[in-house]
């Protein structure tokens, strides 16, 4: 190893003995680390990034020890967005350090003797998160770990406390793991500010090491890591792992029932030792796991008790469920069992996308699709943890849109077209919280000095002085608009802000962080908490309803303020699962999907279905069966209506349930579609004075008018004009639930309303009620109130995508086509089923799509046969009916 001579001999010896060959990221990053230069390492999971970051740190600590210069101070910080990841890393770090002879043996005599000494003979590591017990925190203060593993929130607390601040002055290196999961959200904004606070505190500048899975653009992420104008080296090994994605379409018509998908998943999992099944929503994870357990039971020919008698609980010992609504202990058990090989199959939502250590996975299955290039890479990257092994994943398509999405995703990966990460621009709620923390307990900081510090944090580089002043005024009891308040979070004399002592800081420590409190309700079975469901879902439940949680079918026995009491039940669920955030296709992938569709459509217009088929095989690598599915799908759409193009959307008008319903095929990605839906909703209201029901999906949005209200075609065609964009968007959001929910989160983060006060958490039901009331009052009192502006920014920029939506409207060429198809067109199946929301139970979705499809075939009749001459899509393997 060329860099071996620069490493401390103990570390170098360990490397030659255990590492043999450094991985490419290690080879390229170590020189930067040894020079203590700030750098960003971007490579897939399992390519040795963490060790690349830590080897120089360990080497440096070993050298300090040799020179007898190692003090009881923290030299390196490792910050991870996940607590669990922090524990893993510390655990994984201790083994090599022990082998290098750097770690003190627990309770050794030597250690005890030396405890009083200032110079240290051993290197210590420690973890400090919200979970760390008080006693451990005290020990940590007495003898600070040299390498401290923590989270952004705990760092905020430490930087607020004088006792901890002392231990952080000698900091030399800060490692930020999973940057891709931080830079794009407010936790990242918070961390960026905190690192600048740390710079202010540290005796000398420290270097930063960013570790990231595949992300783009790297320059932006590097600037985020470095902050200010500081240089940042980039170690780019994004393409290090070969990824192979297969597409499996286990259906003949238009859609695969969940049971078929699960059966296919069981078959695919059988050939390998361990497999991980990804779904997009928690509820789907539950249902897929349940169906897979059924399928496994059938395989084992397990006798099921027939008739009305309740069947015994299903044996789920061979299949695990993992998602963020489950109790932490349940999740940890699943992770440990997977690592130990006790559990061969785990069904999860995106919860296992991040780098929690789950050992080697042989095969990754993605049900439906991952809705994006980056999540696809992360999911498939879970397979075969060796950097030189090909990571292989199978997308099990549930319908024809899934085939197209998977094909387009694969094309994007091959072209290196990764979704750009969007860094939130100067979130004011996070700024306000940071300002309060900065002056704990009684520091005084001139506003211009604070502004300069904040601007070095990448998300705040363009922060205006005025915005900071507004925050300072609000925090110093300036109130809202002309209405004065009496609660001070800090003092402000026009020149500087200053801390107000213990009580205020206590409120800050209790409410630190930006993670929105998800409104969740506990579910108890036989007196034990088994998990949580979202409050909105819980409020719809009635006693006797049957739902699925943690792979178990449960029946509601009691609904109370404190939670849901349920009992195990053997039978079909009567309600759809609780709706978690559904992830949407990002713009870049949406463009590729449109390209695929229009490419096929163009060839079909030239009456060349075989050419279209060949186009899918060549450009998208689909197999014959999947390609035939797609060609038929697009041909059906074209025969009934038209295929939307990138700059020419199609608007289809239907009458459904006696309501005029318009489906806008805008194909610009989920966030843009969602934005456009709000605008068109506002415009329809302005035209017809009628409230509409809006449903959004990846390919467009649907607007259902109330009965008797009618909008003429020429008005529909004008709905997508860019004129008055901002006004109409604000109008569309004005009374929305989205704005109110976000206001609650922003008000919590910005310390306007506390989540926890004097040691107790406020009841969530009242919280959401209160914040709706408060939102209305703030809206009336002061539109420029910083946290109201921040709410609007979060909604229009982070959740929706107003700039892209505006650009899309401006790019439309000519008037959109307004058509009246004779039957619901295939491109609308997804959105129509979604528009029925909770009244469609998951299983019914399949039968509904089948019925819609039958109707299409009926209407098209001979017309379909004449144009297309392709083999029927072949069914892979065998499927029961």
């Amino acid at each position: 190893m060329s860099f071996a001579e620069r490493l401390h001999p103990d570390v170098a010896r360990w490397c030659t003995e255990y590492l043999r060959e450094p991985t490419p990221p290690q080879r390229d990053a170590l020189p930067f680390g040894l020079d203590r230069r700030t750098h960003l390492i971007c490579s897939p999971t399992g390519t040795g990034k963490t060790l690349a970051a830590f080897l120089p740190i360990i080497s440096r600590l070993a050298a300090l020890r040799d020179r007898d210069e190692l003090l009881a101070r923290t030299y390196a910080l490792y910050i991870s967005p996940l607590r669990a990841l922090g524990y893993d890393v510390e655990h994984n770090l201790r083994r090599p350090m022990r082998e290098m002879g750097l770690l003190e043996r627990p309770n050794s005599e030597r250690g005890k003797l030396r405890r009083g000494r200032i110079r240290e003979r051993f290197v210590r590591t420690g973890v400090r998160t919200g979970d760390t017990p008080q006693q451990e925190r005290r020990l940590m203060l007495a003898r600070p770990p040299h390498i401290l593993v923590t989270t952004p929130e705990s760092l905020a607390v430490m930087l607020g406390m004088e006792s901890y601040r002392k231990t952080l002055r000698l900091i030399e290196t800060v490692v930020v793991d999973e940057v891709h999961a931080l830079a794009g959200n407010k936790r990242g904004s918070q961390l960026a500010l905190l690192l600048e606070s740390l710079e202010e505190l540290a005796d000398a500048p420290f270097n930063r090491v960013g570790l990231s899975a595949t992300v783009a653009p790297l320059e932006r992420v590097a600037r985020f890591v470095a902050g200010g104008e500081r240089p940042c080296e980039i170690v780019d090994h994004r393409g290090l792992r070969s990824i192979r994605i297969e597409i499996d379409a286990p259906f003949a018509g238009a859609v695969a029932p969940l049971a078929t998908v699960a059966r296919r998943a069981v078959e695919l999992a059988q050939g390998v030792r361990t497999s991980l099944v990804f779904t997009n929503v928690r509820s789907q994870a539950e249902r897929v796991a349940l169906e897979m357990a059924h399928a496994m039971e059938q395989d084992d020919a397990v006798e099921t008790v027939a008739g009305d008698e309740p069947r015994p609980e299903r044996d789920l010992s061979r299949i695990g469920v993992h998602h963020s609504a489950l109790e932490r202990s349940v999740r940890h058990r699943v992770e440990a069992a997977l690592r130990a090989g006790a559990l061969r199959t785990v069904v999860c939502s995106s919860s296992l996308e991040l780098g929690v250590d789950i050992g080697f996975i042989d095969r990754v299955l993605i049900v439906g699709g991952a809705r994006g290039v980056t999540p696809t890479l992360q999911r498939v990257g879970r397979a075969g943890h060796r950097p030189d092994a090909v990571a292989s994943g199978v997308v099990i398509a549930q319908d024809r849109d899934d085939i197209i999405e998977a094909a387009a995703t694969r094309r994007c990966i091959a072209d290196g077209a990764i979704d750009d990460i969007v860094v939130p621009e100067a979130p004011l709620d996070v700024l306000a919280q940071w300002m309060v923390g900065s002056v704990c307990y009684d520091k005084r900081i001139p506003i211009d000095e604070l502004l300069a510090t904040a601007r070095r944090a990448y998300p705040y580089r363009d922060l205006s002085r005025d915005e900071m002043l507004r925050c300072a005024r609000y925090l110093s009891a300036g109130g809202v608009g002309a209405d004065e308040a009496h609660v001070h979070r800090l003092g402000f004399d026009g020149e500087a802000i200053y801390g107000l002592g213990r009580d205020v800081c206590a409120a800050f420590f209790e409410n630190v962080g930006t993670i929105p409190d998800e409104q969740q309700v506990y579910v108890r079975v036989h007196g034990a908490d088994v998990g949580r469901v979202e409050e909105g879902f819980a409020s719809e439940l009635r006693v006797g309803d049957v739902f699925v949680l943690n792979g178990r079918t449960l029946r509601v026995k009691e609904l109370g303020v404190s939670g849901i009491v349920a009992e195990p039940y053997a039978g079909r669920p009567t309600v759809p699962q609780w709706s978690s955030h559904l992830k949407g296709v990002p713009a870049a992938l949406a463009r590729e999907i449109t390209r695929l569709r229009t490419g096929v459509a163009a060839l079909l217009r030239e009456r060349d279905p075989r050419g279209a088929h060949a186009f899918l095989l060549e450009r998208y690598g689909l197999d014959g069966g999947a390609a035939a599915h797609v060609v038929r799908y697009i041909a059906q759409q074209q025969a009934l209506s038209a295929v939307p193009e990138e700059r020419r959307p199609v608007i289809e008008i239907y009458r459904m349930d006696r309501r005029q319903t318009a489906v806008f095929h805008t194909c610009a990605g989920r966030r843009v579609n969602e934005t456009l839906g709000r605008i068109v909703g506002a415009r329809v209201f302005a035209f017809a004075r009628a409230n509409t029901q809006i449903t959004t999906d990846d390919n467009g949005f649907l607007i259902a008018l109330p009965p008797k209200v009618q909008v003429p075609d020429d008005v529909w065609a004008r709905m997508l004009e860019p004129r008055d964009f901002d006004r109409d968007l604000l109008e569309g959001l004005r009374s929305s639930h989205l704005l109110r929910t976000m206001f609650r989160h922003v008000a919590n983060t910005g310390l306007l309303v506390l989540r926890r006060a004097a040691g107790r958490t406020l009841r969530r039901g009242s919280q959401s009620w209160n914040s709706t009331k408060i939102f209305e009052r703030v809206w009336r009192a002061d539109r420029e109130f910083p946290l109201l502006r921040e709410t609007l920014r979060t909604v229009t920029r982070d959740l929706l995508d107003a700039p892209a939506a505006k650009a899309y409207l401006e790019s439309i060429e000519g008037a959109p086509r307004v058509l009246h198809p004779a039957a619901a067109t295939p491109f609308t199946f997804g959105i129509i089923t979604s528009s029925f929301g909770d009244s469609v139970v998951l299983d019914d979705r399949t039968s509904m799509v089948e019925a819609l499809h039958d109707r299409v075939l009926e209407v098209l009749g001979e017309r379909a046969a004449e144009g297309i001459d392709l083999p029927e899509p072949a069914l892979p393997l065998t499927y029961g009916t």
Partner: protein
Amino acid sequence: MSAPRPSAERFTLHHGAVALPQGLLWLESARTLVAADAHLAYEEVIGGALPLWSTAESTHALLLAARRMQARELVLLGDVIHGSRMSEGAARTVIAALDLLRAEMRVTLVAGNHEGRSRGAAVLGATEEAIERDGWMLVHGDRPVVAPRTIVGHLHPSLPLGGGAHVPAFLASPRTIVVPALTPYSNGLNVLSREAVAALRTLEAEPNALHVVASTPDRVFPFGALGALRATLRAGTGARPQRYRRALRPDRP
């Protein structure tokens, strides 16, 4: 008064007790206005660095109603404030609000559980455990009472309107009247819920016989007996509709 009636500006419950808009109760003979659970300065209790909007609004509403009814007395039926821990500024605001009311009429404060019986004394002044007006015993309602006729607050009864919205509602029988909360910061106890029935049982042997009178800022809406109302609403919802079936065949344009 068992059946639902059209909305009105006032609605007589029992024995000279009248439901008014804003969730206020009027005792005719004594010319006493009764408001429960004002929870003044609540914005600070929820940890808010907020202006005390609700204090100003509640005071304003009470003054208007008192003037319109030419009230001799105002009874605040407990939980006037929400805990005695509040900022100096908030305490001054609440004291000023009470002074404003006291300048117009006699103000009697009944002790509630939230100001902590006596702890709020610095802000509120003297409070009474129970008082009697027009043959009714007026108490906060957090502790059991033995009296032939009682008026209580404490429960914050409200009627859900769907979509997460609620409207304050009186509950009344010849022996018990529950006055809804004055504070806007409470979605209240859903009178249709099981918890409500359990809570009401401590006050009234037959909770389902209690009459529900919803109260908006300008009108009152008598809904009839609670049991009958619940039965009506249940019949209205029934099984989950499968209306999407109809969407399968779009009607012709």
